[in-house]
């Protein structure tokens, strides 16, 4: 190892941190390779195959998709070899600017080896996991979009968790009370917006520390929803049985193999999300409104000088962010499980924040990042059903560990809005 380091020394001597990062990554790849080789080959029988179903059960699609059948041991060894080779190259030479691509390849190889191992000798619905990935990513993306809006305007919104929870609660209760889930959805949006307004008033008007203000809203939302759920919903079940939104497969598009069942067979929340992603992306980067919002988040004083009302812009955008998070919260009850359970959001709002950071404060990036978190979530849900020989508690940890890795690995490498989290004082 030292000899190798000496030979490359002249080329990269300028950046020691980069060399260290390169070595760390190399060691991590080799570790992953040995984990695959050691653990994932252990109880796989010789000649066993892993079958991945690519067509959802009960699908009436005209296009037939064959199942993916692979020899388990061969695939696992192949993945181990690939990771080891990439790790060795990374350790010795590094991949320069293509490090992210290589990291992606290694992660995919690792995950695929893991799935092959879990499905060895039986069949696993890969399309089921992928569908679940998108569904689990939905509320995370709504949360991330809320974060993108607020932080582009320079307000840190850590209250997304509370907004999601209140949205879930309001959606369930109003949806049940009125018997109309659309009214429930609108009410959830209104409540989310109200919490956004509360955050804005505390952070902008009363200049409270934004992280503390967000934490207050989170605790407040958790306490209030639990309180009312215990006091009212326990005795009145009929207030917690909203009608769920049915899924609406889009004609033609939902017939596309793999992509169709993933993205075009969801319910109203999925399409609402796609529309929102498009609108926010276009709005933020291609309209005068978006330019003003970003100016307020990057350099409020300059924005003020050219006549933009900084505080008013921030109020509006934080309330809008609250509305988006409220809609995302309604997904938990109106789009997914159908009834409210105390603290049912389980930190998805915070994961949304991590997705926003991973996505570089852009709507599309946030969505892609949310898919990664959604995949971790879906894997956990599916594998605990499959009775894989990993304790369910460790599977449940996966999304949170991924979040930590993402936040730790990326926060220094992406550029955040310059005035994020800083109150603005005219004067």
């Amino acid at each position, binding site marked *: 190892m030292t000899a190798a380091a000496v030979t490359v020394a002249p080329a990269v001597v300028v950046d020691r941190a980069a060399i260290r990062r390169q070595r760390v990554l190399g060691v991590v790849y080799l570790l992953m390779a040995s984990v695959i080789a050691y653990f994932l080959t252990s109880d796989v029988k010789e000649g066993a195959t892993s079958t991945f179903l690519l067509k959802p059960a009960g699908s009436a699609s005209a296009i037939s998709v064959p199942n993916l059948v692979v020899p388990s041991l061969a695939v696992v060894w192949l993945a181990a070899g690939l990771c080891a080779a990439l790790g060795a190259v990374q350790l010795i030479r590094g991949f320069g600017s293509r490090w992210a691509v290589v990291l992606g390849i290694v992660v995919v190889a690792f995950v695929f080896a893991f799935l092959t191992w879990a499905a060895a000798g039986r069949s696993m619905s890969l399309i089921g996991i992928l569908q679940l990935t998108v569904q689990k990513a939905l509320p995370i993306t709504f949360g991330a979009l809320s974060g993108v809006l607020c932080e582009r305007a320079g307000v840190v919104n850590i209250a997304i968790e509370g907004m999601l929870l209140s949205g879930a609660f309001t959606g369930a209760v109003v949806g049940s009370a009125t018997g109309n889930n659309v009214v429930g959805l609108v009410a959830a949006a209104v409540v989310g917006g109200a919490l956004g307004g509360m955050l804005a008033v505390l952070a902008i008007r009363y*200049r409270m520390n934004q*992280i503390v203000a967000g934490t207050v809203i989170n605790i*407040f939302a958790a306490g209030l929803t*639990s*309180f009312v759920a215990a*006091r009212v919903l326990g005795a009145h079940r009929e207030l917690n049985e909203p009608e769920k939104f049915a899924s609406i497969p889009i004609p033609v598009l939902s017939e596309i193999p793999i992509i169709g069942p993933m993205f075009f067979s969801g319910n109203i929340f999925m399409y609402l999300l796609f529309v929102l992603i498009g609108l926010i992306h276009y709005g933020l980067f291609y309209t005068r409104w978006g330019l003003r919002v970003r100016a307020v988040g990057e350099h409020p004083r300059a924005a003020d000088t050219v006549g933009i009302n900084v505080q008013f812009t921030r109020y509006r955008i934080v309330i809008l962010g609250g509305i988006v998070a409220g809609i995302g919260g309604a997904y938990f009850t109106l789009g997914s499980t159908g009834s409210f359970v105390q603290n049912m959001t389980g930190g998805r709002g915070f994961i949304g924040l991590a997705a926003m950071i991973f996505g570089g404060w852009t709507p599309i990036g946030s969505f892609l990042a949310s898919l990664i978190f959604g995949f971790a979530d879906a894997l956990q849900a599916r594998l605990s059903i499959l009775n894989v020989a990993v304790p369910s508690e460790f599977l449940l*940890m996966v999304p949170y560990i991924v979040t930590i890795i993402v*936040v*730790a690995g990326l926060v220094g490498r992406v550029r955040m809005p310059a005035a*994020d989290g800083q109150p603005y004082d005219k004067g």
Partner: protein
Amino acid sequence: MSEPTPPQATPATPPPPPAPAKPAPASAQRAPAPAAPASASPGEPASLGQRIRGGARGLILPVLAIFSALVIGAIVIVLSDITFFDRLRADPGTALGAALDEVLGAYGALFTGSLGNPGTYAAAFASGDLEQITRAFTPISETLLAATPLLFTGLAVALGFQCGLFNIGAEGQLYLGAIFGTFVGFAFTGLPWFVHIPLAIGAGFLGGALWGFIPGLLKARTGAHEVIVTIMLNYIAFNLVNFILKVPGYQREGRSDPISKVTIDSSWYPPLVEGLRANWGFILGLVAALLVSWLLFRSTRGFEFRAVGLNPTAARYAGMSIATTTIVAMTLSGGLAGLAGTSIVLGVTHTLTFGISAGFGFDGIAIALMASSKPRGIIFASLLFGALRAGATPMQSITGIPIDLVVVIQALVIMFVAAPALVRGIYRIRVPEATGLETFSQGWRA
């Protein structure tokens, strides 16, 4: 700003009461030599009168915050009764009267559940029966019992605040401390208590410190914001507890539910008064408060914590390492939260289950905010929140108002305490500006 004793013109100077000797805050003018003002520079000592007046002024904000929170809590109680509006329409007078009775009943139960019933005390003392007198003090004992873990988590969060770090992970650190402490509690047999208890406490501190070290290290090395990392570590810790409680050797023999072995009685905290549940854990908490106070306001390390918290740039120019300070502060903070875990396991439950902490870690945030991160204030704030907790259970069983009301009240207390301008706006009075939050780094920057 209206400061009676202005040591320097920093906007972050807190109100005077609990600051006997305040080393001048780090300012840019300090020479870039390694700063070590151990116990020097007491500033201008305030006279006793000034200090009392300052103390009274410092109390205005918390008192008004609690009052406002209770008022809003009352509104929540009334409005969450879904028959209220129907009854209001039918007969406003009776409906409002019933609502008032409901609120007074709930708060009354909260009060007697935490401080005791004057009638019971009188009867007990009149009877002269020692056992009856002891029993009359049960509510106060329960308050002290609930205040004990809160004292530790409050100190943990406050230590972070002083260094500009927001440790939301006290809950997870508490569980890690409990896992370690419980293990020492049941695994080491035949030790005398004066060896066993310190050993278990040390293990608990270690467990919590480990869970605080991770976010500290990640923040210092990569800039990952401690808020997200500690929240994620909370969820990981919850799953870890669930896992470890099913590991053979940790799980109690013959049980299928997640519960640990019973700790050996040589590791238990002795009760303060025989017959009551309050134990020496509370005294340990007071000692911890003293130690934290010494650390923060009398030691070089504590000076560095506060300097980094107030102005990282100035601290760096003064030769302090922000990375080291961050890691040490988070580790100590986690260790204190771990002690909260041991105080529950060794003082109350004597066994580890998933339910040992009902959000004590999160209450620590409220306590630290309320006390402006001052150890002396944390003692009082944890007693207050301990009283709320102790009273909540009888409140639920007597009046049927769910315990979660206390969480709502706590959130409101934090809100009012952290935004003095809000209290000023509502009551039209002057309240001190300092909230102990000035040390916060903004946004996601490291």
